[in-house]
């Protein structure tokens, strides 16, 4: 066996392996011995046919193919050992020559290399978090609206009202749809059932009947309706409006969450908003730090890793609504292509963070994983037990551990970056 190796771009190594004639012959002999046991040649008991007969029967190429199937991986693994190469995924093998000599080339993805930038140089200041008074008021207003009961109103329909209507839809004397006592909330620019429908209802009085025609827009989701004009006959039988409760101590108590007066509700809302804003600020800060580090670092990785990352994204996408929306009407390839930049970014990030974890000797102990599982289980309430069971599997624990490691690493980075201010 003659081996030559060459490192090429993107953390890959090309190995050129040339088999010695004896190795080829040996392997052919092996292949014959292997095949002869399975193949019936007329005139011979199974396993007794001479090699020449078998070659005539199967064809020389078939025997050689069988031989290569064993020879190539064997030579490859020996070559890898000899060259001290640590491949991280299946190589791409190209047979350069197979008869009479055997020469092949293998392109092997090897461990990515990460050259970290000096992360101690990164320095960021956490942005101050403020919650404006208006935001609190807005949130309160929202709560008030959500808890407002519907009350009958004696006036023409306005936006925001909940109405009970009888509706009849016709097209040139054919009744397409007829419904009684339909509850409908009149919202401006609401696209259901037809864009413009809600607008026509505005101003209709209780008990009044109104007729109007609306065309479905040509690009309407339901093909059979798109672009067609229908006559709507609508009778409003009831109009209800939101009766906003007074924003006072009484209201705070009525929420039934242990608020004694309006002030305590207000404070809770403010602190919630603050916590959310802080969380957002923290995320942004982390993002900035990681981005800065990625920018300073040089990462090289084999393309196969990106493909794997895309696989992951696709799988995750299948589970989420967003993913479904995105994949709708796209071929697998298009979707993959679209996910590629995102996957590349994620991969680089995780490689860089992994390197930092290594440098900083950040580790996650089994106890920490247990703690996290417990925290998750507590948070999940009734389904907590189920969660605990899920996290008993090695795989789930591993992924949780990875997650924790990333989290810790990012935290450490932020710490360093924030402390860097003083240096």
């Amino acid at each position, binding site marked *: 066996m003659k081996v030559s190796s060459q490192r090429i771009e993107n953390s890959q190594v090309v190995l050129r392996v040339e088999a010695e004639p004896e190795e080829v012959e040996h392997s052919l002999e092996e292949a014959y011995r292997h095949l002869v046991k399975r193949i019936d040649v007329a005139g*011979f008991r199974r396993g007794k046919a001479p090699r020449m*007969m078998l*070659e*005539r029967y199967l064809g020389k190429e078939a025997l050689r193919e069988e031989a290569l199937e064993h020879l190539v991986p064997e030579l490859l693994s020996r070559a890898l050992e000899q060259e001290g190469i640590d491949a991280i995924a299946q190589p791409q093998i190209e047979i350069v020559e197979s008869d009479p000599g055997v020469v092949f080339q293998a392109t092997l993805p090897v461990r990515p290399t990460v050259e970290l930038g000096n992360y101690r140089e990164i320095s960021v200041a956490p942005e101050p978090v403020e919650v404006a008074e208006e935001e609190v008021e807005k949130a309160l207003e929202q709560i008030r609206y959500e808890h407002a009961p519907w009350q009958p109103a004696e006036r023409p329909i306005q936006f925001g009202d909940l109405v009970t209507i009888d509706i009849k839809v016709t097209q040139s004397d054919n009744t397409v749809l007829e419904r009684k006592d339909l509850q409908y909330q009149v919202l401006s620019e609401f696209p259901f059932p037809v864009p413009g429908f809600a607008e026509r209802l505005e101003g209709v009085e209780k008990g009044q009947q109104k007729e109007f025609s609306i065309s479905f827009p040509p690009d309407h989701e339901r093909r059979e309706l798109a672009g067609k004009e229908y006559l709507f006959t609508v009778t409003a039988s009831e109009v209800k409006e939101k009766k906003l409760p007074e924003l006072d101590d009484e209201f705070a108590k009525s929420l039934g969450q242990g608020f004694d007066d309006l002030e305590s509700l207000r404070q809770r809302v403010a602190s919630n908003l603050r916590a959310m804003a802080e969380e957002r600020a923290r995320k942004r800060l982390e993002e900035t730090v990681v981005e800065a580090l990625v920018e300073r670092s040089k990462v090289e990785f084999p393309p196969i890793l990106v493909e794997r990352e895309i696989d992951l994204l696709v799988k995750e996408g299948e589970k989420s609504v967003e993913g479904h929306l995105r994949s709708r009407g796209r071929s697998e390839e298009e979707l993959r292509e679209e996910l590629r930049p995102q996957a590349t970014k994620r991969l680089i990030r995780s490689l860089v963070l992994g390197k930092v974890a290594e440098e900083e000797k950040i580790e996650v102990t089994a106890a920490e994983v247990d703690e996290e599982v417990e925290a998750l289980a507590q948070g999940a309430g009734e389904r907590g037990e189920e969660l605990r069971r899920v996290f008993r599997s090695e795989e789930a624990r591993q992924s949780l551990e990875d997650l924790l490691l990333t989290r810790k690493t990012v935290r450490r980075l932020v710490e360093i970056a924030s402390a860097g201010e003083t240096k």
Partner: protein
Amino acid sequence: MHVLEVLRRPIITEKSTALQEQGKYTFEVARDANKQQIKQAVEQAFKVEVAKVNVIAVPPKWRGPGRRRGKTSPSRKAIVTLKPGHKIEFFEGV
């Protein structure tokens, strides 16, 4: 009878292959060929010298059940022993 009509085909089986080591080659031959004709045919066709020829009549055999039942064609086998140092390659190459 013409020389080329004598030899029908080589018989290649486990048994015949084993015999080849002793310089004995097996053929299916024309039923009415005699040992002399077989000897000449082999000598001409393979350019070798023949030491002796043994012939065996292969009788027809009953094959198949019921209505499909019939007999296989009868034939004649010849085991040709070559003089030492002579060899026949049934297959090209290798």
